[in-house]
């Protein structure tokens, strides 16, 4: 196979996610009553980046063939924490932001440590740690409240040069600073190898533990960035259980839409980001068609069901029935 075709096959998931997003985006903007304007884009991107950060973290963990069901709760915890510490003098604000991100990373590191050294299945382990993180969030904010430095918040949720939404710029920056180095490092390759076949990776002397630990910790950090941004948008902190678990489930849905294999070893965080953007646009699509908001959950569900069923066409091409069970 030629180099470029190989590369294309590798990027197919990401490309599909981008295509779905592009179609949704165009449909959305063509039908939006206010038309294609900087304001509309800003609102859209502000809503979508939250999920994009979580989906990116989830993708990192899923690539190592794990799963993190606590991302939504880390998101809630860092939201509550940020609403308490990101206030006061500029130094305090800076310190608060660092503390919030560190808390997110610490949650992820704890998940990683339990999965690696405790040898528990990630699906149950992160359900349990999720309960702990939600408890901590409740301890910080028993009732919704708190505040955040509004200058920083407005700066990061506004627009650059009057056109580009700052939140999208931050998202791109995070991709450049976190994802690209990870993908190109030995640890990143180890993460893919671990996801493909842990036993083979082990035999080849690949640093499995380091790869998993970095993946979980980074997922926590990204959830922390998401939580910080949530605080910037809402100016408050709230420990909402329903919202936390919804974000966890949405992050998995985005990852799947983004072409990341749930078995691990395939896909990219960029795909997951486009998956998240597409998922958010789907959710908003109904508003521009001026339908009853009551239809929104059903519409979102049906589109999600159709999107995941698309993957089933692969089974029609199977030549050997045993490949069903691969």
């Amino acid at each position, binding site marked *: 196979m030629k180099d470029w075709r190989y590369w294309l096959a590798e990027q197919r998931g990401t490309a599909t996610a981008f295509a779905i997003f592009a179609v949704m985006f165009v449909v959305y903007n063509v039908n939006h009553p206010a038309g294609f304007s900087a304001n509309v884009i800003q609102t859209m991107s502000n809503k979508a980046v939250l999920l994009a950060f979580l989906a990116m973290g989830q993708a990192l963990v899923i690539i190592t063939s794990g799963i993190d069901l606590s991302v939504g709760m880390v998101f809630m915890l860092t939201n509550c924490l940020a609403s308490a510490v990101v206030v006061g003098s500029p130094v305090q604000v800076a310190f608060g932001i660092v503390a919030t991100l560190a808390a997110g990373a610490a949650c992820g590191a704890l998940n990683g440590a339990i999965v690696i050294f405790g040898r528990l299945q990630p699906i*149950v382990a992160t359900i349990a740690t999720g309960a702990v993180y939600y408890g901590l969030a409740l301890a910080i904010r028993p009732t919704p409240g708190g505040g955040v430095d509004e200058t920083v918040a407005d700066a990061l949720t506004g627009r650059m040069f009057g056109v580009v939404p700052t939140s999208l710029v931050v998202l791109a920056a995070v991709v450049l600073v976190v994802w690209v180095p990870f993908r190109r490092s030995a640890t990143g390759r180890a993460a893919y190898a671990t996801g493909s076949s842990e036993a083979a990776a082990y035999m080849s002397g690949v640093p499995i533990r380091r790869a998993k630990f970095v993946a979980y910790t980074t997922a926590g950090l990204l959830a922390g960035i998401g939580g910080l941004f949530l605080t910037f948008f809402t100016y408050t902190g709230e420990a909402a259980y329903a919202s936390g678990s919804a974000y966890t489930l949405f992050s998995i849905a985005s990852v799947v839409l983004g072409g990341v294999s749930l078995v691990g070893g395939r896909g990219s965080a960029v795909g997951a980001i486009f998956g998240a953007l597409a998922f958010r646009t789907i959710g908003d699509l109904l508003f521009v068609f001026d339908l009853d908001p009551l239809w929104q959950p*059903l519409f979102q569900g049906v589109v999600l069901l159709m999107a995941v069923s698309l993957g089933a066409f692969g089974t029609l091409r199977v030549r050997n029935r045993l490949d069903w069970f691969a």
Partner: protein
Amino acid sequence: MFNFARRFDPAVATAFVCLFVLLLVGSLYSSNFLSLEYLVQQLKVASFLGVAASGMMLTILLGQIDLSLPWTLTVGAMMSCAMASFGLGGEIFAVPFGVLCGVAIGVANGFGVAYLRIPAMIVTLATNSVAQGCMVLYSGGYSPRDFASPAVRYLATGFAIPGLPNAVICWAVIGAATIFLLKRTTFGRAIYGIGNRERVAYLSGVNTRRVVLAVFAVSGGTAAFAGVLLAGYASKAAQSMGDAYLLPAIAAVVLGGTSILGGRGSYLGTVAGVMLITLLQSILSVMQIPEYGRQIVYGVVIIGMLLLYGRGPRTRA
């Protein structure tokens, strides 16, 4: 004796020991924890989780998972309440209709998993949101009848046998059926076989796709039945009633020694897991620990117990 030793499962035994330790800790706090009344009450509360966990356990034994439990449960509750508003016939068919709606969702899940080969986590997530959408639409457009019929209330809170709540009997019946299914039928064998390696089960002549479809249908049915019982217990159906059951159901199955990777586990363990979760929640609320403390203790205890007996093997080639 030899037979007993061979069947002895350390995970199930540890789960039961944890159960006794939990009761002991509770009884140190208040002697009420050992009273028959309290224990029967706990058994009744546990039966809702127990019914829901039965189907969940079957899917986990396959190496799959059913994340559509929350809204399948709500669908069961709401549909049975809706059916009960159609006069006498409705009253009679309230429970079967609720369960049937759950089975329908389960069949959709099973079709996606077995025939379309989509990972269970994704299919069930999607059907869950479709079910949610339907229920939001149904209960939002106009206000439907949402209170349970007297018959359903009797099923959940009545006493057909003095001293033994009907809900517990329902759980016992479903539990006995599950044990029979797993231990005495080829269907049960096939479930364990598929959980260990679906490829091999297929090559051994098992119609694996049909088994997977059936298991998801059963799982949808039990989730919906738990919803019906819960509606009878609370005497009405509410939108978010299922949210509190998904994670405890998975936790109960796993704490009971069933491998989340499938193929290994016994129903006795699931019973222990359900009791563990219910007692833990009850003791934490009796001790009047604030909500945040309860969540933290809940999570820490689950991790602690899993570290005791749920650890996986070391990575080897």
